[in-house]
């Protein structure tokens, strides 16, 4: 739109924007326009450079190969996965004879019974995953509440506390659940407790930030009206802020719970309980049929609880 001077700075704004802008603030309006248009090509160029640099350096380090036989591997894996192991409950061999190289029968296996036992294990793992996500989310909400209140700018908590709370929330949010999982496994040992703490630690950061933002976007008129009656700070919060922000907070907790059900399916990978253990087992033993069963189970559980939580949330807000 505007012409560029050799040093890249924008030329003075074109006249018609100044004409169109309201008289009270012509300066800021035109400056905004020129800046926006000269920034766009520069931004695109920077993005393009980053992409090219990434591609080129990775290729130079020989990190961009797809392995020796990618298509063959993909085809093989997909074929095995297209036969999810749970089908064996009905179609499995009731009397499968496992033989050694000489044709000697080593053992006889009822594939159907084995699969039923496996599915029971999957069910237990799903239940554990669900419990980890739920308890983790509840704990996260309890941690997020005070931190979110302190961090919300319009509640005017003492500066030091506000900054402290904000810092803690940012730190919690920027560390992944899986990393927290490793951390807590080291502290409380293998199992669901580590998973719950990991989910709680990361989600507390997310929830606290969401809560602070919800409070900051509140209409302060009703809150001031409560203050105007001579109410104490506690009353102002519980009579003016809390009723207005509660539905949003509940909705956010449910949303994060949905997230955590997804997140905690992989926590078992680091030994923090739940489905992840079965996932890593199936993958390291190349049991793609079982992996398919597990993935289907995850998809089923996640979509079910997504729908459930969405239905509840729609009713609240």
């Amino acid at each position, binding site marked *: 739109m505007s012409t560029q001077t050799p040093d890249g700075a924008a030329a003075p704004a074109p006249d018609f924007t100044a004409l169109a802008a309201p008289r009270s603030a012509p300066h800021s309006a035109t400056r905004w326009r020129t800046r926006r248009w000269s920034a766009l090509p520069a931004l695109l160029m920077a993005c393009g450079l980053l992409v090219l640099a990434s591609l080129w350096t990775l290729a130079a380090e020989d990190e961009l190969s797809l392995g020796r036989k990618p298509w063959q591997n993909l085809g093989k894996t997909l074929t095995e996965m297209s036969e999810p192991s749970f089908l064996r409950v009905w179609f499995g061999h009731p009397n499968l004879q496992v033989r050694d190289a000489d044709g000697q029968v080593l053992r006889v296996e009822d594939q159907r019974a084995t699969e039923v036992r496996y599915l029971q294990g999957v069910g237990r793992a799903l239940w554990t995953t669900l419990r980890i996500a739920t308890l983790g989310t509840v704990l996260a909400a309890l941690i997020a509440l005070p931190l979110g209140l302190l961090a919300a700018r319009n509640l005017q908590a003492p500066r030091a506390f506000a900054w402290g709370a904000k810092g803690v929330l940012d730190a919690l949010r920027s560390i992944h659940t899986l990393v927290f999982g490793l951390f807590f496994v080291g502290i409380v040992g293998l199992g669901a407790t580590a998973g719950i703490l990991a989910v709680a630690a990361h989600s507390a950061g997310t929830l606290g930030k969401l809560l602070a933002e919800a409070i900051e976007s509140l*209409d302060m*008129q*009703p809150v*001031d*009206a*409560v*203050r*105007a*009656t*001579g*109410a*104490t700070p*506690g*009353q102002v*919060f*519980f*009579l*003016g802020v809390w*009723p*207005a922000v*509660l*539905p949003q907070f509940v909705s956010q907790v449910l949303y994060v719970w949905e997230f955590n059900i997804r997140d905690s399916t992989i926590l078992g990978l680091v030994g923090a309980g739940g489905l992840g253990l079965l996932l890593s087992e199936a993958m390291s033993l190349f049991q793609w049929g079982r992996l398919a069963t597990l993935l289907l189970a995850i998809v089923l559980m996640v979509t079910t609880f997504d729908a459930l939580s969405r239905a509840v949330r729609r009713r609240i807000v």
Partner: protein
Amino acid sequence: MNSALCGVIEARGLQVSAGAKVLLHEVGLSIAAGERVALVGHNGAGKSTLLRTLTGFGAAYRVTRGSLRVLDTDLAQARQGTALRRLRSHVAQVHQGLHLMGRLSVLDNVLIGGAGRHHSVWTWLRRWPAAEQRAAQAALVRVGLGDAAHRRTDTLSGGERQKVAIARALHQGAPLLLADEPTASLDADAADAVASLLAAVAAERRATLVCVVHDLDLLPRLAERAIALRRGVVVADVAVDAHTPAQLRGLLK
């Protein structure tokens, strides 16, 4: 509180500024107990600033010169904390627009008027003593919304909501009642009803009413004295019933 002697509101040479910008210049004002006063003037004349300063609201501006006493409390001494809360509990306020908690019931909103008297932790859970509940219900009956006590407030019309706000002010039982354009968002009939109710309630309780008024037609209903502000300066101070509507218009514009 012996407010009859020295006036409910006493401002002397009051100057209020936001940074370098002066919002109110040298305002001298004396309002006696039981008076009903309207503040009039264009947008930005300083009416709302004056009203908010009376109860220590307005984080963006502060008193930079002069003195202000409200209900025998010096605002310079009651900037925050308990002193300011005590003053606020004696001043009931009705404002324009959305200042009720829409998700709470009508009765819960009225009960908030008692927050200045009861600081117990139970009130955090909206549990109030039985006497408070009876008083709040009575206030609702007075404004004609006795049947609506358990409705959600955001299901009410604009006029009804303003009546709830008046009921809250009634329930607060304060000797001074401040109103900032209480009829701003209402149609003519509802505005009329709300203005009449406000004046009647103030008269019944022998409360002092200070009200920012935009619609000069409502002036005779609301007030017996009108104070006009222009660019932060008091430019007129007249008795409403001594003038015809046309004269008032000329004096106050």
